[in-house]
């Protein structure tokens, strides 16, 4: 009886979900409420979790509640600790949620909210959450080993090195593109720059407090830090308004890029307790808090979506990023739908703390659903803006011109009517001089959030406060990623370089550390600087590269899942990881191919290099370059980007080939050949 009621309930719920999704998809020509989008997302997630993740848990991974996890087998009270599932869920979500799901959907909103929504919802259910969950499930059967170790173990050492190089490359690109987001947000913004700069002394203070005054009191020091942060947002407004103070915090992109590079170096060689750790605490708590705040604001305000469901830019002519819906939408929204990065977390700290195999479903699959929800919220925040304002903020100067008049005229021509006054007025409301060309997601999200919160809470001049609060929140956690990433990148470079020259491997040697740190900072710093001086704005060059890299890593992770499923002799379920793996391989290779060989210089690095080389040969300066020197730089950058893109494609192809080879070998064997740790019953473990 209960079973029948349950089934009936799920059927009703599924119909409700389909109805919400239908409303989102089919309403054309009139604006709809964001609540429909939220409801459709929640319904999709609940159904995906209830049915698909359960199917994967029971049939594909065959999770076993009686089997002891690494947390029990290797319990040391430190790294390996059986942990309450809710506590671990918080840990896992905080580790996977970064700037990615906030930036990608904002950029992709240029095609309208519908394509992005559909990709996020279906992408996460069938690809992203599957990857996170399966990698976690495989790692707990292998002592909590990392992705690189598992690839080496199951697919051979050559593919292990390929995966390691892939991880290092994606790391450098992600650091560069995230740092670029910060630069774009802070350029000529004394208020933002002051607030973000203040996080350094605040963090130093917190570090000293935690080390000497009240060791280990995390909550206490975080509250103090948070109050100081809010104070610095407020003081920032005063600083920006003061004619003698404001110029001290008013920098162009180049200066900011150099500061970030210097900062990244310092933060990663200083003792971690002094700067890195306290900033990490602050930014992590701020991140979680702000995500909750954004969710509450969307629920309370129930705003209307101003962006059309589909815009004309699905044809690939969009100003924010160039290229057709396929494959570029699927590259632009990486995190939120599927993010290869997560496979590193799912095979990092989380598997060492899982108390029971069955809980992997909630942590791995459920954690990723939450991240997709963050992506949906970012999409909503971008879509509630007047489309004219959205395009003014996210288009490079090369596309819309440098003044509000030019910008308003161009954007209105595209069919998104906007007046110069609206653009000036919006800038004034948020306490900035201009909102033009602030691509990168953070400022757009900040304006969306500021409008939402201001709409609920009101208050004279509070819009500017909320805008800078949102900028601070994104900048803070992006910079923490940059510090921590530089440190991790340094260790990876030392490990790789150690293969060639062993003394470099010594992580305790000061000389080896500095060499590796300089190499790491130089790698991402190069791309950051290139993005900053790029007349096309940088983001529309670097973000697709980041997307390709991230999806490439996901393709590697899912290929590993395919290999292990076959090795376990569960070929019947090969389609579960194989369909998303193939999809990602097709997307990354198509996008990579177009980035190299498309005829349109807006899309292809090589076509663009050829166009500018031809111009250079005739001695002509082609827009947006302003001098022959800039022309040369554009050509050189294009060749570097093309090389990188080609390398990513090679990595994908190599991994796919290694995967196929291993799968064919595994099929020839009559026995399962996966390297699982032997079964130990949970009951035999000391309680």
């Amino acid at each position, binding site marked *: 009886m209960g079973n029948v009621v349950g089934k009936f309930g799920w059927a009703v719920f599924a119909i409700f979900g389909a109805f919400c999704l239908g409303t989102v998809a089919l309403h054309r020509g009139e604006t709809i409420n964001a609540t429909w989008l939220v409801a459709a997302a929640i319904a999709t997630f609940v159904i995906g979790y209830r049915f698909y993740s359960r199917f994967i848990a029971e049939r594909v991974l065959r999770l076993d509640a009686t089997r002891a996890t690494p947390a029990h087998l290797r319990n040391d009270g430190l790294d390996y600790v059986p942990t309450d599932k809710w506590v671990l869920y918080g840990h896992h979500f905080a580790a996977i949620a970064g700037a990615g799901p906030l930036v990608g959907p904002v950029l992709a909103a240029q095609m309208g909210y519908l394509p992005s929504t559909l990709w996020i919802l279906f992408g996460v259910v069938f690809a992203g959450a599957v990857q996170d969950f399966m990698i976690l499930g495989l790692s707990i059967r292998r002592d909590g080993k990392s992705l690189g170790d598992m690839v080496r173990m199951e697919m051979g050492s050559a593919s292990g090195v390929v995966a390691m190089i892939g991880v290092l490359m994606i790391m450098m690109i992600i650091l560069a593109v995230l740092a670029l987001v910060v630069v774009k947000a802070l350029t000529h913004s004394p208020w933002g720059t002051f607030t973000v700069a203040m996080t350094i002394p605040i963090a130093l203070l917190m570090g000293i407090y935690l080390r000497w005054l009240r060791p280990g009191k995390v909550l206490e020091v975080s509250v103090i830090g948070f109050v100081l942060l809010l104070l610095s947002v407020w003081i920032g407004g005063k600083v920006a308004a003061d004619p003698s103070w404001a110029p001290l915090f008013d920098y162009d992109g180049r200066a900011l890029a150099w500061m970030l590079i210097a900062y990244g170096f310092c933060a990663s060689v200083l003792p971690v307790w002094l700067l890195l750790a306290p900033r990490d605490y602050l930014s992590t*708590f701020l991140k979680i808090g702000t995500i909750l705040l954004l969710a509450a604001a969307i629920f309370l305000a129930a705003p209307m979506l101003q962006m059309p469901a589909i815009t004309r830019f699905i044809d690939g002519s969009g100003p924010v990023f160039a290229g057709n819906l396929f494959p570029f939408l699927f590259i632009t929204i990486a995190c939120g739908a599927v993010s290869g990065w997560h496979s590193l977390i799912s095979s990092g700290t989380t598997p060492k703390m899982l108390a029971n195999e069955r809980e992997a479903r909630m942590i791995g699959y459920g954690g990723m659903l939450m991240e997709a929800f963050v992506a949906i919220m970012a999409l909503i925040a971008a879509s509630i803006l007047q489309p004219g304002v959205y395009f003014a903020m996210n288009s490079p100067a090369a596309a819309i011109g440098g003044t509000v008049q030019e910008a308003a005229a161009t954007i209105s021509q595209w069919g998104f009517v906007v007046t110069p006054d609206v653009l000036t007025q919006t800038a004034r409301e948020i306490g900035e001089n201009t909102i033009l060309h602030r691509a990168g997601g953070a400022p757009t999200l900040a304006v969306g959030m500021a409008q939402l919160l201001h709409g609920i809470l009101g208050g004279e001049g509070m819009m500017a406060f909320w805008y800078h609060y949102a900028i601070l929140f994104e900048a803070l956690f992006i910079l923490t990623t940059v510090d921590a990433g530089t440190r991790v990148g340094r*260790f990876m470079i030392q490990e790789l370089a150690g293969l060639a020259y062993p003394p470099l491997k010594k992580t305790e040697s000061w000389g080896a550390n500095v060499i590796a740190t300089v190499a790491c900072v130089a790698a991402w710093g190069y791309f950051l600087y290139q993005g900053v001086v790029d007349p096309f704005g940088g983001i529309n060059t670097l973000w697709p590269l980041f997307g390709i890299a991230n999806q490439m890593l996901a393709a590697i992770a899912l290929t590993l899942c395919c290999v292990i499923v076959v090795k376990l002799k569960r070929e019947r379920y090969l389609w579960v990881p194989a369909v998303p793996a193939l999809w990602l391989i097709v997307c990354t290779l198509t996008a990579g191919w177009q980035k190299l060989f498309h005829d349109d210089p807006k899309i292809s690095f090589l076509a663009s290099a050829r166009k500018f080389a031809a111009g250079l040969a005739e001695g002509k300066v082609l827009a947006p370059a302003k001098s022959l020197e800039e022309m040369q730089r554009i050509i050189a950058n294009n060749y570097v980007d093309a090389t990188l893109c080609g390398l990513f494609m090679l990595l994908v192809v190599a991994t796919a080939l290694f995967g196929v080879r291993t799968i064919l070998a595994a099929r020839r064997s009559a026995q399962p050949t996966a390297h699982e740790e032997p079964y130990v019953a949970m009951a035999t473990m000391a309680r």
Partner: protein
Amino acid sequence: MTTTTPWRKIWRKAVQMGRLIVGVPDYDTYVEHMRRVHPERPVMSYEAFFAERLEARYRGGGGRCC
């Protein structure tokens, strides 16, 4: 009042979650583990435990056996 009310439990979990989010696992669990499994080894103070976990968080991978 020494009985653990549901709210106390929730608060304790929230604190544990907050700490673990920044890489500090539960100290009581660690102490209990050391007493039970390695009674002969010295137990770190909370301050030492905190400092050790902080270093471990940024060490860049590589778990250790106990």
